[in-house]
């Protein structure tokens, strides 16, 4: 189960420094003119009593020019534009950090929080973050590996790829630059089967977005795992709106309206089974936060995913509709004859299908109960011409031959 790294790991591909005791070096940054212009723009017309704050200093406008106020030094007044440029260039990491988040990333909460989290889970200083970014900060998001770096102009760049492709050179992967291309990458699994659930752990590998800017990195993640960042952000803000099973099923209408009748006030074991079937980490990377209702937790684990699942999804609702109908049947007693090995084989087959293992079972591996030859043998021996197990009709009044 992929999990976000708890702290910035910045070891991969690092230029090996013999002295491992030394803190990583802050890269040398040249102040780009767009960042400087953005500062001038921000100061233009700004109240002189409301300085623009950067890490370690602030800048304000005054009559004769600018005021520079370093936290660790003397306040300088009457600073010319040229002198201001010089001063900001000396503090280029702090200025480009301000520019990256205030001007490039922008205000939108989920995007800003996510990009911030990518490089700064713990409120680190600019120097610490830039030093880590210089070597590459890696984060996991579902099956993705996202590596954030910084250029010598203080711009953030992101490499987004499948975690299984960690360490693979870019030119050995299919390269993409438009984040919307990710919509095609998520459509089919590696066997070419349609993925109706984008957070299923079946993302195909072999591709890379090697050089995205901040907004495009967010858009790529959004295309691969839609709305996961928005929900993660709400959760971090303590505002995740969870809709539990009961209220979600009560809301359904049309062909799904029937699902609410499955809740008969006899407990929630049926919903435990649904969650075990559909919401386990082996089936979906979202961490299930919804329960039976707001007072009754389900008895199965919600998983360890980085991003939350706030209500039963459409795949679960559709499957629940089927189960509502199937589970309205009363159990019956059937009598079959099976050898002990045949009983175990039936169990093996169910396990293999449920765990998605059938493709792994080798053609000649007859030790496996779910092996195809073994299964065909069982069918040949135990099914009658109508496909009835043990020759026992499903309906008790059915006979082997039609009247």
């Amino acid at each position, binding site marked *: 189960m992929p999990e976000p790294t708890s702290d910035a790991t910045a070891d991969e591909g690092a230029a090996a420094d013999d002295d491992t005791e030394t803190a990583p070096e802050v890269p040398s940054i040249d102040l780009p003119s767009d960042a400087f212009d953005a500062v001038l723009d921000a100061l233009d017309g700004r109240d002189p009593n409301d300085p623009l704050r950067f890490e370690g200093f602030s800048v304000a406008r005054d009559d004769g020019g600018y005021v520079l106020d370093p936290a660790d030094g003397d306040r300088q007044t009457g600073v010319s534009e040229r002198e201001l440029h010089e001063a900001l260039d000396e503090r280029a990491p702090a200025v480009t950090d301000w520019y990256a988040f205030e001007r490039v990333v922008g205000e939108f909460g989920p995007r800003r929080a996510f990009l911030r989290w990518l490089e700064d889970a713990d409120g680190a200083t600019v120097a610490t973050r830039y030093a880590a970014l210089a070597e590459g900060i890696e984060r996991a998001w579902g099956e993705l590996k996202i590596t954030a770096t910084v250029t010598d102009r203080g711009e953030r760049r992101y490499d987004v790829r499948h975690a299984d492709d960690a360490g693979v050179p870019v030119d050995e992967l299919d390269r993409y630059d438009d984040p*919307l291309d990710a919509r095609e990458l998520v459509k089919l699994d590696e066997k070419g089967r349609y993925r*109706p659930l984008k957070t299923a752990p079946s993302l195909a590998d072999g591709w890379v977005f090697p050089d995205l800017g901040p907004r495009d990195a967010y858009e790529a993640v959004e295309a691969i795992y*839609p709305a996961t960042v928005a929900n993660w952000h709400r959760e971090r803000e303590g505002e995740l709106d969870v809709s539990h099973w009961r209220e979600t099923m009560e809301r359904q209408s049309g062909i799904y309206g029937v699902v609410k009748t499955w809740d008969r006030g006899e407990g929630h074991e049926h919903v435990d089974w649904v969650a075990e079937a559909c919401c386990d980490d082996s089936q979906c990377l979202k961490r299930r936060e919804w329960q039976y209702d707001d007072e009754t937790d389900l008895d199965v684990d919600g998983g360890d995913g980085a991003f939350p699942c706030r209500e039963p999804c459409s795949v679960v609702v559709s499957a629940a509709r089927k189960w509502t109908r199937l589970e309205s049947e009363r159990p019956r007693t059937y009598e079959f004859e099976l050898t002990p090995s045949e009983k175990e084989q039936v169990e093996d087959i169910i396990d293999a299908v449920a765990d998605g293992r059938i493709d792994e079972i080798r053609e000649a591996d007859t030790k496996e109960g779910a092996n195809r030859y073994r299964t065909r043998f069982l069918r040949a021996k135990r099914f009658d011409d109508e496909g009835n197990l043990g020759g026992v009709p499903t309906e008790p009044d059915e006979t082997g031959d039609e009247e």
Partner: protein
Amino acid sequence: MQSLVIVAHGSHLNPGSSAPTYDHADTIRATGAFDEVKTGFWKEEPHFREVLRTVEGDEIYVVPLFVSEGYFTEQVIPRELRLDGWDVSEWDSDGLSADQATLVAEDIDREVHYCGPVGTHRAMSDVIVRRAESVTGDPDVGEGFGLAVVGHGTERNENSAKAIEYHADRIAERDRFDEVRALYMDEEPEVDDLPEFFESDDVVLVPLFIADGYHTQEDIPEDVGLCEDHTEGYDVPTEVDGTRIWYAGAVGTEPLMADVILERAADAGADLGTALDDVRETTRVATGD
């Protein structure tokens, strides 16, 4: 900041279901008329329930990529988007005239302009005609041709037939095609008997569906007799009982659909600049061979 949200059905089973939605979103994105263009689905992700929280803008236009007014546009979408105070009377529609309603979406506590479906917009008639041009490869197709506009009948949705008739009537009034008929899958006149309803040797069959899927790729081709079994495929045109049928597939896949989405947003007050003209131009059928 102006945002467009296109909401569509999507599918758990058919990987191609979302393709027209994405394609039209891309066409509109390229015009630059909106600061952002998002897509949301009933059966895919982001779901209707969660799409609005991915939207950044404060002028939000939601356009349903559905063919008619009915269950989805009147109940499911407003409920799942959590449009506060929604009532179908907001649209004051006769089944064809829904334009827009401005309501607060509780999910984001911001107003959204909830538009009528694309299928009932007058511009949809142009898309049906454009679809006929595309499938025949003739930008002037009409003379010597019949046009069949096909949809579900009333069994599934009483407004479905209204939309089909509306467009068939409007196109007939233009006197471009020799004959125009509305045909249905589950009521009279039935698409199964298409050759009986036309005198023309050539008939373009345009199904009023958003995406290709079971109905347009399996049901209709088999019912009309284009093939015995859809897995065999069929030619365009295919002759059935003396009528050459030019089967167009789902009209919703026609690039000009992007225009109808824009029209819906414009009717609701979106500022589009030259986007409508741009889309009509970029989606045009090439002239000549």
